[in-house]
Every structure is written in structure tokens, then in C-alpha cells.
């Protein structure tokens, strides 16, 4: 009976599966040098960027898709994907929110991300990316006063080409992997953030990614630079319509923290996960990496991964600067036929560098959840420290949890700790809660939330509550 119930909990439906009927300007499916030139031209890009895209494309042609992950999916036909789709607007680019298509504003409102000036999320600046382009960025003026640059990637290319040229591809080079090469060739938009020296960003920054058009891929690129003694907290959210076919999302995120700078990057990923039988859903192949270039710098990744049919992502930190700190906090939930292969890489280069990894995997239904982590301590990283804790919670007898931790220690002064646990949600725990009068549904979510608490504690306040709710929805009907 308990099993039946947990199944019901996990089976709740996806609330963001609607499609916005909006006219869009699409390229024909397929990828070629021509397509890349067209994207670049459409965006009126400087030549250095076009040349970079073309080099990435040439490299991509020589790459094979990675197959080492613990994931099963059919080959992706890259010629069937539409590489550029933008909502048709009356004007080329909306100058302010009053020029944004009302239907788009309505879409974001439905998603809980109001963009209207008068009902914006308090204290959070949002950049909204719809298919291939950014449609709106809120609180721009206020941020400008603080000297913070927060805009769409395309806009940054026009207004700050020197920063793009200086930093783009320096953390994730286009040669990094198959999907990074593809993204570098065809990326259409994304967000750009620059926090100047000594500035503590006055509000949370956030990007909301929405895939709408059918058969398109979303290839966005985010670049965040925190200059000396600065601080920024950034949040990313994602949803997509329910469709029977799979859609590809291949993003690249690069973070750069200079001396004494701190970047906190949080993700609530809720792409459409596919249906109960595993039809449809987003293929999420993402490369996220931060470089702690400066001394005493800190980069912290927090991710709540509840969506996507396939998740392949390893937000990593390169700890170059002395005393720099890298953190990775993750909750990954796989339900139905979802598969996630996620984890992190902590590369210790500088002296006294420290890293913390807390990973919580929850598997339900037929979900397969894999933690894959690398802790590498180079000979230069004197007195490096790492603590890894990786816990798995199983909610059914048909799901799976897998752990592939890897450590390469080349300096004898390093201190590395690894803890791991796997447990099945206890009949005992459920019975105990129910005996005290809790409904079974509330008991499951209480136990799961307790399991994830360490990670939720790392989320910005505004989103911790969201994340808990999201987990409850994603879990409806899941134990069995």
C-alpha cells in the first residue's frame, strides 16, 4: 500500500508544459557553416566572434559525442535540430518592457516570473531567455547605478566586446568537449554579468530559460565575471513545454572570480522530464565551470535538478588562486524514466585551496541517478583540502543509484575525505510519522526534505521555498 502511495506522489504532472502560440522567426533545421554565419550576422557580431564560432564548428566536426556516462539514449540527429528560433517582434529588439510582446509577458507570468515593472520579483533582477533570444531584463537601471553590467549576451557583444573577447572561452574552451564545441559554434543568447571591483551586487541576479518552439535546441551561453573584492549571487531557472519528442539543451556557463571575489551560482532546473513511459523530455547536456583565478576567491555551485529526461552536467571549479574555495551542493531527483549523470570536478592548483562537495541523489520510479565526481590535487596545491559527502535515497525498488567518485592526489600534504551512504526510504520512518498523525504524502515530503536540507540551506532564501515545493511536485506518487 505504501508503495502504491509513493507511486502516486511521484506521478504528479508537470505544470509548465504549455506552449505559447507565438509567431517566431525560425531557421530551417540543420547545421552548416552557413547557419553559423547567419546566426552571427543576425546578431551583428564582430568578426572575432564569428571566427571563434567557425573554429569551434570545425573542431566539433572532428568530435564524437561522449558515451562514457551512465546514460542510455538514442543518437541525436544534429541535422534535424533548428539552431535559431526567435519570437517575431514588431521591432527588432524591445527597448523596454512596454515593447515586449504581451504574450511573452503573459508566458513568464504563468511561469511565476513576472517581468512587468510594477510586479517584478522583489529584490531579484531577471533576464528572460525565450528559445534563442533574451526578451527582457529587469532592474537594469538600478544595477547600472551600482556599476553592475547585467544584460543578454547579445547585448554585451555590442556594448562590451572587449570583455567578451578577453574572457569568452577562457574557462570552457571550445575544445573542451563535444557539447561545448557545439554550443560555441551555435550559441544564440544567454546572460552576461560583470561586477566591477569592490562592488557587492545589490540584488540577486537571475536568468529564466524557456524553450517554447518545437524541434529547436537551446544553446545559451552565460559568462559571469566578478572583479577583485566583488560579490554576486546568481540564479538560473528552466522550463519547457511537454512534447513527445526530445529536445536538446546544450548550454555553457563560465564563471571567473578574481582576487577576493565571490560568486554564488544556484540552479533550479525543471526542464520537461518526459512522461511516465519516458517519451519526450529535454536532453540536458551542460558544461558549467568556474575559475577561481584570484587569491581568496570563492565559487559556489548549488543545483536542484528535478527535470530533463537526460541530465549530463558537472559544474566544476578550477582552484587556481591561493586560498581559493570551491563548493558544490547538489540535489538531483530522477523519477519515472529520467536519468541523471551529474557531479563535479574540483581541480586544486593553488596552495591552501579548499573544496566541499555535498551531493544528494533521490531516485524514484525507474529513475537512474549517478554521481560522478573528480577531486584532482596537482603537485603545486600544497595543503589542499577536500570534503566529499554523497548520499543516495531510493524511493522504489525499480530505481537505481550509482556513484563514481574519483580522486587524483599528486601532493602528499593534501587532506581528502569522502563519505557516502545509500538508503531506501524507510517504511519505519513513514509509519512513525503517520502514527503521529501526518498524512503519508506529508511524511514522504518531510523525510525527503530532511534528506536535502544541507543543500537547500545553501539556496538564496527566495528560492529555498520554491525548491522545496518543486521537489514535492516532482515526487508526487513516487515511492514504491
Amino acid at each position, binding site marked *: 500500500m505504501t508503495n502504491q502511495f509513493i507511486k502516486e506522489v511521484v506521478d504528479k504532472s508537470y505544470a509548465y508544459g504549455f506552449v505559447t502560440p507565438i509567431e517566431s522567426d525560425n531557421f530551417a533545421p540543420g547545421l552548416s557553416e552557413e547557419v553559423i554565419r547567419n546566426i552571427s550576422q543576425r546578431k551583428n557580431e564582430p568578426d572575432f566572434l564569428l571566427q571563434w564560432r567557425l573554429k569551434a564548428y570545425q573542431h566539433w566536426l572532428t568530435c564524437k559525442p561522449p558515451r562514457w556516462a551512465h546514460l542510455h539514449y538514442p543518437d541525436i540527429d544534429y541535422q534535424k535540430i533548428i539552431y535559431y528560433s526567435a519570437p517575431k517582434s514588431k521591432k527588432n529588439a524591445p527597448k523596454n518592457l512596454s515593447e515586449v510582446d504581451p504574450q511573452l509577458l503573459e508566458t513568464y507570468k504563468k511561469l511565476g516570473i513576472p517581468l512587468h515593472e510594477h510586479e517584478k520579483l522583489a529584490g531579484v533582477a531577471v533576464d528572460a531567455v525565450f528559445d534563442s533570444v533574451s526578451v527582457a531584463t529587469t532592474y537594469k537601471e538600478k544595477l547600472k547605478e551600482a556599476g553592475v553590467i547585467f544584460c543578454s549576451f547579445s547585448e554585451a557583444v555590442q556594448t562590451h566586446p572587449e570583455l567578451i573577447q578577453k574572457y569568452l572561452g577562457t574557462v570552457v574552451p571550445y575544445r573542451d568537449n563535444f557539447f561545448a564545441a557545439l554550443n560555441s559554434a551555435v550559441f544564440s543568447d544567454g546572460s552576461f554579468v560583470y561586477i566591477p571591483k569592490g562592488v557587492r551586487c545589490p540584488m540577486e541576479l537571475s536568468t529564466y530559460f524557456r524553450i517554447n518552439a518545437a524541434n529547436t535546441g537551446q544553446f545559451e551561453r552565460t559568462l559571469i565575471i566578478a572583479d577583485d573584492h566583488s560579490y554576486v549571487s546568481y540564479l538560473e531557472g528552466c522550463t519547457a513545454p511537454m512534447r513527445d519528442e526530445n529536445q536538446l539543451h546544450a548550454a555553457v556557463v563560465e564563471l571567473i572570480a578574481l582576487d577576493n571575489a565571490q560568486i554564488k551560482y544556484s540552479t533550479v532546473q525543471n526542464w520537461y522530464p518526459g512522461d511516465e513511459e519516458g517519451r519526450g523530455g529535454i536532453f540536458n547536456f551542460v558544461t558549467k565551470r568556474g575559475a577561481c583565478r584570484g587569491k581568496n576567491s570563492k565559487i559556489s555551485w548549488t543545483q536542484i535538478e528535478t527535470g530533463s529526461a537526460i541530465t549530463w552536467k558537472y559544474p566544476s571549479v578550477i582552484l587556481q588562486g591561493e586560498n581559493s574555495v570551491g563548493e558544490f551542493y547538489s540535489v538531483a531527483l530522477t523519477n519515472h524514466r529520467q536519468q541523471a549523470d551529474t557531479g563535479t570536478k574540483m581541480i586544486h592548483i593553488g596552495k591552501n585551496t579548499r573544496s566541499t562537495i555535498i551531493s544528494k541523489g533521490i531516485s524514484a520510479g525507474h529513475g537512474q541517478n549517478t554521481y560522478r565526481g573528480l577531486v584532482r590535487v596537482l603537485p603545486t596545491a600544497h595543503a589542499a583540502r577536500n570534503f566529499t559527502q554523497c548520499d543516495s535515497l531510493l524511493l522504489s525498488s525499480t530505481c537505481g543509484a550509482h556513484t563514481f567518485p574519483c580522486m587524483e592526489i599528486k601532493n602528499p600534504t593534501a587532506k581528502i575525505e569522502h563519505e557516502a551512504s545509500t538508503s531506501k526510504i524507510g517504511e519505519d520512518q513513514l509509519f512513525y510519522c503517520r502514527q503521529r498523525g501526518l498524512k503519508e504524502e506529508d511524511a514522504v515530503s518531510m523525510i525527503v526534505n*530532511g534528506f536535502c536540507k544541507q543543500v537547500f540551506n545553501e539556496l538564496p532564501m527566495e528560492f529555498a521555498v520554491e525548491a522545496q515545493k518543486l521537489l514535492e511536485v516532482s515526487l508526487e506518487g513516487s515511492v514504491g
Partner: protein
Amino acid sequence: MLAIKNLHVCIQDEKEQVKSILHGVDLTIHPGEVHAIMGPNGSGKSTFANVLAGRDQFQVTDGNVLFNDNDLLALQPEERAALGVFLAFQYPIEIPGVNNMYFLRTALNSLRKIKNLPPLDAMDFLALVKTKMREVQMDEKFLHRAVNEGFSGGEKKRNEVLQMLLLEPQLCILDETDSGLDVDALQAIAKGVNSLRDGKRSFIVVTHYQRLLDYIVPDVVHIMAKGKIIKSGDKSLALEIEEKGYGWLDS
């Protein structure tokens, strides 16, 4: 209040073997009574306590249980809790990451909701729980830890009785609450239990030892062996057991 007739219970083990544990238990408890159930290991005492609370690993194959005119066996565990059935666990369960105070308040408020009472807010609840904690001599720091996680045996049992004091059930079932306790903890727990005796609330006290019954004085003592109640009497029966053991009952 509670009328149990001809209760038969079995369990299926991992090898799918069906094992009968209780075969024909009859028991009637009136409001305000304290019934002690004693018996050797494996006699079915704990099973009996868990079946009343609605643990679903056991299968009831025959008999019925009426609790204030409700067919108890037809109800889910949370529905039984709402009617006022409370089980103090022999081995209280740990719930990592869930704050004890949050757990206690959620439990209390979900019961209040069923009774159409407004939920207690954090301040009112804190005042209430602090009073109750003093009764079982429990340190307030246990409010801020995860439910039972890293609690000692005695602390876990105090936490059980604390929940009982908060939820104010109609029928309190104590499943070997005395096992593994030192004298101080035993007295604190007995004090808590006795404070709930109001002439209406009933108790089933499952125990191996008569020691607990020095502090919680029963109206009736039952001896359970091999899945049946084989002898009932007043509190002197418990003393007799203490003296002679269970062996003499077999003959």
C-alpha cells in the same frame, strides 16, 4: 473504549513464509484503565502493540477491534492517530535533517486540523513544548536537533513520552518504553505518563519487567505467551512473575 475479539495476526517473512504470531487475543479496556501486558520474548507483545497502531507489515487474518465504536482495523495509521491512538515506539525512529521541533509541531497541528482547531503558531507552540519538556526532564536543546538522530536510548524514550504529552491521545500504548533506561529516566517517564492519567484516558503498557509497574501502577496485568493471553489478574500477578519467571505458566 477498546474491545478486541479473537485477534489473529500473521507476518510474511522475506522468504514469503507465512508465520502466525497472534492467534486469538481477546481484551477489553474501559476508560481510565491501565493494562499491563507482560510475557516472555517472542510472545507477540510488540506485534500486538504495532497492529493496534496500524503497522502494515502485519496481516490481520481474523477477529475485530472496536475503538470507541470505530472499526480500528479498517483505518489508516494516521486516521487511528486522529482518533487518539498513540504508540510509544520500542525503537524510536531517526529522521535525519528534520528538526525535532518542526516535527512535533507538524504532528500536533495535523491532529488539531482534523479536530477543526486552529494550528498553533511557533510562539504558542514553543511555550507549550517547553512546559511539557520540563515534565519529562528533557533539555531544550533536543528541540533543535533532528528527530531522534544521535539521541541516546533514554533521550529517545523521553522524546516519545514528550510526544504523548503534546498530542494528548485517548489510548496510549507503551511498547517496552522501560527497556534500556536507568532509574532516573524511568522515573521521569513514569511521572510523565502518570500526569496523563485522568480517569478517562487508557493505557496499554507492554513490558518485560515488573520494575516499571512500581511507578505506573496497573489495574490489570495480562500474561501473553505464544500469541495468546494466558492469564490475567491484578498487579500482584506481576510480582508473582518477577519471583517465579514465566516457566510455571506453561505447566
